[in-house]
């Protein structure tokens, strides 16, 4: 049986293009045949490739949310138009989804009939020998000594040894091999469907979140502990596995590249203590080396310094005392941090700070950091007073301070110098508000915690697809025939072959079969002679 192919496959019989009957069923059938044709699949594939391009030109909310914000700021007029076209969510946009869903409908419509057909083909005998072999590939004529039945028995044996399925039709043999080519093709296409289903359905159970953990702090896996959290559609909070992670120590290793003058990170290691089901264990998390905890995986994404800042009121009572993660701005870890002191002072105070692990002064007087290690740690602070907007119930980004409605007390145009603190130093805040101290210098890491049940399925499907691809592209599906006729103790043999799909080796395979049969016959003849 031929592998079943859409009617516009180059190997299928050319059918006259019939106008659909003007009935509903006629049109539906016509439409379905169009959708499941090779041409449609091809056009949809190419469309998918083209449709993927815009997502690489403009930032995507999924991959680069900050890039989207930046784009909006830089292109305020263009932004709404592109956003209306869903260009910032290309890969979940209506048009992108429409293309791949149509493609997969086409795919399913294509492979299901093929699978049924192939299932039957696997049990069917190779087709009858064509009447005229001389029009087929590798046509060869040979002669052999012996009985016709004997020769064909030998031929059958030779073919079976090469993995052919063989049937004898009258005085000829019909053989076929390489059914696994079609199997591989179907496995490949089904694996793609499996990937889509896994991502579409199992993806709903996925969740991931980020969290900054400062040395000495413990993260507990519950919704409120995350800095940001993205649940899948079917996520329920009770599914969060109970565990906690304490950051004991973060150890970076840098090398200064003297010729280029910038530091090269060699290694980042977060030493953590994990508590899970009442037992504690020590682990290391590195880039490229996440740890599995419960049903989740924890990855090391970033790191930086969290200078411990203590703010005291005019009487010397601490009203704020905690490490504040400063976000790195360059490779020497010049970092930016925000401190908000809503209570305890006469007015609400906000501080915007820069941290320089290895501070040095530029000629302009500005500070810079020379190296990402704390050789000369310095914090500079600009103080603001006014309404921090914390009390009105709207959650505010802890990494941003809206200074518009605030009054600046130090730095900038305020007339006062910025506050500059080395480690252990403290300084007075202006207007007798109190004092601020740079107390100590823990580090922080940012980790991402992932639960992704699609991973295993997608990996298996991808490997299946690869295996299917290999068999489908490189195992030839071919037919061989040998037709025999005998006269006076000589058997005339005609050989020929036919391939299904691309098969440059077919001619050689026919020749090789003819030679092997020759040899098998003469071997037998010579081994039998002494017996006579």
């Amino acid at each position: 049986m031929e592998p079943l192919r859409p009617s516009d496959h180059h190997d299928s019989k050319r059918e006259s293009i019939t106008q659909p009957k003007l009935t509903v069923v006629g049109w539906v059938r016509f439409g379905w045949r169009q959708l499941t044709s090779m041409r449609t699949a091809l056009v949809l594939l190419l469309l998918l490739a083209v449709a993927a391009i815009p997502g690489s030109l403009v930032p995507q909310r999924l991959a680069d949310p900050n890039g989207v914000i930046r784009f909006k700021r830089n292109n305020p007029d263009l932004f709404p138009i592109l956003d209306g076209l869903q260009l910032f969510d290309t890969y979940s946009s209506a048009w992108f989804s429409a293309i791949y869903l149509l493609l997969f409908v086409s795919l399913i419509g294509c492979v299901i009939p093929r699978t049924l057909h192939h299932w039957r083909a696997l049990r069917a005998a190779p087709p009858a020998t064509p009447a005229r072999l001389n029009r087929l590939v590798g046509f060869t004529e040979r002669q052999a000594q012996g009985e016709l039945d004997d020769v064909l028995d030998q031929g059958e044996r030779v073919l079976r040894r090469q993995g052919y399925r063989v049937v004898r039709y009258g005085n000829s043999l019909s053989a076929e091999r390489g059914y696994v080519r079609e199997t591989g093709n179907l496995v490949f296409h089904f694996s793609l469907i499996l990937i889509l289903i896994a991502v579409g359905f199992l993806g709903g159970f996925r969740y991931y979140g980020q969290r900054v953990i400062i040395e000495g702090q413990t993260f507990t896996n519950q919704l409120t502990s995350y800095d940001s959290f993205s649940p899948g559609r079917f996520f329920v909070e009770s599914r969060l596995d109970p565990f906690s992670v304490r950051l004991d120590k973060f150890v970076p290793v840098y090398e200064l590249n003297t010729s280029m003058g910038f530091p090269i990170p060699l290694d980042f290691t977060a030493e953590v203590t994990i508590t899970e089901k009442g037992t504690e264990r020590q682990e290391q998390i590195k880039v490229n080396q996440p740890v599995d905890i419960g049903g989740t995986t924890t990855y090391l994404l970033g790191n930086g310094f969290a200078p411990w800042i203590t703010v005291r009121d005019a009487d010397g009572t601490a009203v704020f005392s905690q490490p504040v993660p400063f976000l790195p701005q360059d490779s020497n870890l010049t970092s930016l941090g925000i401190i908000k002191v809503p209570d305890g002072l006469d007015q609400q105070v906000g501080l915007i700070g820069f941290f320089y692990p290895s501070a040095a002064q530029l000629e302009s007087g500005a500070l810079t950091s020379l190296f990402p290690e704390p050789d000369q740690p310095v914090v500079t602070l600009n103080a603001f007073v006014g309404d921090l907007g914390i009390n009105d119930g709207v959650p505010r980004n802890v990494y941003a301070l809206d200074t518009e409605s605030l009054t600046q007390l130090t730095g900038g145009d305020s007339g006062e110098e910025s506050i500059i603190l080395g480690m252990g130093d403290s300084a007075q805040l202006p207007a007798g508000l109190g004092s601020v101290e740079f107390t100590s210098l823990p580090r922080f890491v940012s980790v991402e915690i992932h639960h992704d049940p699609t991973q295993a399925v997608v990996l298996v499907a991808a490997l299946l697809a690869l295996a299917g691809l290999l068999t489908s592209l490189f195992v030839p599906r071919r037919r061989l025939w040998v037709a025999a006729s005998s006269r006076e103790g000589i058997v005339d043999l005609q050989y020929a072959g036919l391939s299904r799909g691309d098969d440059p080796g077919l001619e050689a395979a026919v020749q090789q079969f003819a030679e092997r049969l020759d040899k098998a016959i003469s071997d037998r003849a010579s081994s039998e002679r002494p017996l006579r």
Partner: protein
Amino acid sequence: MENLVSLSIVAVYSAIGVYTVAFLMFTLDLAKRAGGVVERTHVPMAVSVGAGASEQAEPPERPELPRPDAEGVGGATRFQRAAFALTALGWALHLAAVLFRGIAAQRVPWVNLFEFGLVATAMGVGVFLLAQLWKDLRFLGAYITGFTVLSLGIVTVNYYVDVVPLAPALQSVWLVIHVLVASLATALFALGAGLSVVQLLRVRREARAVAGLRFLDTLPGSATLESMAYRINIVGFVLWTFTLIAGAIWAERSWGRYWGWDTKEVWTFIIWTLFAGYIHARATRGWRGDRSAWLAIIGFSAIIFNYTVVNTMFTGLHAYSGLVTNPN
């Protein structure tokens, strides 16, 4: 170590020099064939490759032009033999450059744009040289050496960076596998695209649509070229599929998700889809021949685009060109 790095650079420049001479010789060879073609006796030759006569016994889609000899490509001229030998010599220097660079860096020498270029072109020439064991493709010599000289020149002059140790995100066995297989796939697609270009020219020549370019008459027929391109491209496609999977595995380890539509991921996907389209086109009536050849060329152009423009101009997590000063 410094010595090895400079030695590597000397080897690169020597390779460029040798390849340039090889390129000139290959071009001379083509010119020579254009002149010689008239005097040769033409022996008609049937389609032998891939056409797969079926029961319907379709006539071959495009009849082959007469070919100069049954051996395939018109016998090698002196120029071609010399050019081929020079290419092999250039490749030895090229390999030495890769090797020295790797030893000096004490890591695999393919972690920035310069090194990718160095390794991918070495792969390309290597595949070209080895492919001769399979089929005589020396007529692609001018294309391969020309392309290599151009690429090596550009990466060496514009994208050169010093040896630096591996950033933590790159410290992974998947770096070794993913990039190596990707450049092998690229090399195969380069060869495939070359064959497709020649195929398109040859079709036009067969239809007498182009005057000139007479050397085309000495090359294999368009159906043979198409079939060879297909054989090469499907190997490339399997390797590219593997690249995609290996990249996803690495991304999961490194960034916490196996697929996130990062710019480079998008382009790897686009290229994969284009070649899947190419393979389909080869099986679709009305799309074999010219159209599928164009798809193969577009697919390879997308790879070049990905390597050059996407690597240097687009933002994304794959900021490994080595050109940015911020390794975070």
